[in-house]
């Protein structure tokens, strides 16, 4: 849906390339609610941004991210009750459809907290890759850890098959509550891990390509 959207107090003139590109990305009118983007994913991206750029948005060359685009994709879950006693098992899906053609994938990682304090105990978490049609799941090991406790798992090989890209990524978030048992408080669910796509935008600009549809994945 690429119908023109109002942007502040812009006059009704033929859309400039910059504004057209921004309209394609903008969520909508000023009253649009940005519910899902909050909490841990937003804090993570804000920290990433502060490391990468100064207060006026100038990229810090001394701390280059190595790419010009990083997209955080939030997980969707099928609902239901993920808790079974001490165990937390949540199936997650990351939709990768609709990525712009000009953005080429360099690397993909899933970021999660392997350990977090909840109430009087501790949650220890890990991730499993769900491959369609295969019963055994692949246990994913973190490839990097940050000082804020985040762990990153490289999932690039699972997103790119040959010359094409997959349409979605399926994982299972598995946690176990360690420490004292008991307590009648409702268990606190950990935040969903999020997917980071490190992309190279070959257009390197705001002007959208002429009449190019978003890439359709097989």
């Amino acid at each position, binding site marked *: 849906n690429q119908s023109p959207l109002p942007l502040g107090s812009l006059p009704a003139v033929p859309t400039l390339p910059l504004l057209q590109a921004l309209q394609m990305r903008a969520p909508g009118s000023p*009253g649009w609610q*940005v519910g899902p983007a909050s909490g841990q994913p937003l804090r993570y991206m804000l920290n990433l*941004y502060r490391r990468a750029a100064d207060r006026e948005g100038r990229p810090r060359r001394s701390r280059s991210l190595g790419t010009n685009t990083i*997209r955080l994709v939030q997980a969707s879950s099928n609902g239901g009750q993920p808790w079974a006693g001490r165990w937390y098992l949540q199936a997650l899906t990351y939709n990768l459809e609709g990525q712009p053609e000009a953005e080429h994938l360099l690397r993909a990682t899933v970021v999660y907290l392997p350990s977090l304090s909840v109430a009087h105990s501790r949650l220890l978490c890990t991730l499993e890759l769900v491959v369609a049609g295969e019963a055994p799941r692949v246990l994913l090991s973190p490839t990097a850890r940050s000082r804020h406790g985040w762990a990153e798992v490289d999932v690039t090989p699972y997103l790119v098959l040959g010359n094409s890209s997959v349409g979605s990524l399926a994982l299972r978030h598995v946690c176990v509550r360690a420490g004292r048992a008991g307590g009648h408080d409702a268990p606190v669910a950990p935040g969903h891990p999020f997917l980071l796509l490190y992309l190279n935008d070959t257009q390197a600009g705001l002007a959208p390509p002429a009449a190019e549809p978003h890439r359709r994945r097989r």
Partner: protein
Amino acid sequence: DTGTLAHDLPNYLREHRGEKSDCSLRPFPVSFAQLGWDHWIIAPHRYNPRYCKGTCPHLLRYDYHAPNHAVVQSFVHQLVDASVPRPSCVPYRYSPISVLMIERNGGILYKEYENMIAESCTCR
């Protein structure tokens, strides 16, 4: 006339140096709230795109990085036909900024956009 101007270049430059209306880079910090984009651009809250403004001198100095065509057009305006406009003061080099945005589907996007800040001006 062109030869006279070139011969008298040192005096010409001395007379016209320091004019406030000369083509130059000017600051202009702007917030995304002023542009009406603050509901989906998370950071930065403001940035300084700057702009170029001023009169291009009749004799374009080398530091204006003006193409030869602009030099010729300036002489044409001055010596041949005043209806041919003088070169305009416009940005020459740019630098990028990084932006953090909320996407339509709730995703969060970090992106470096090229050519967002004017770093120098030219006459063309």
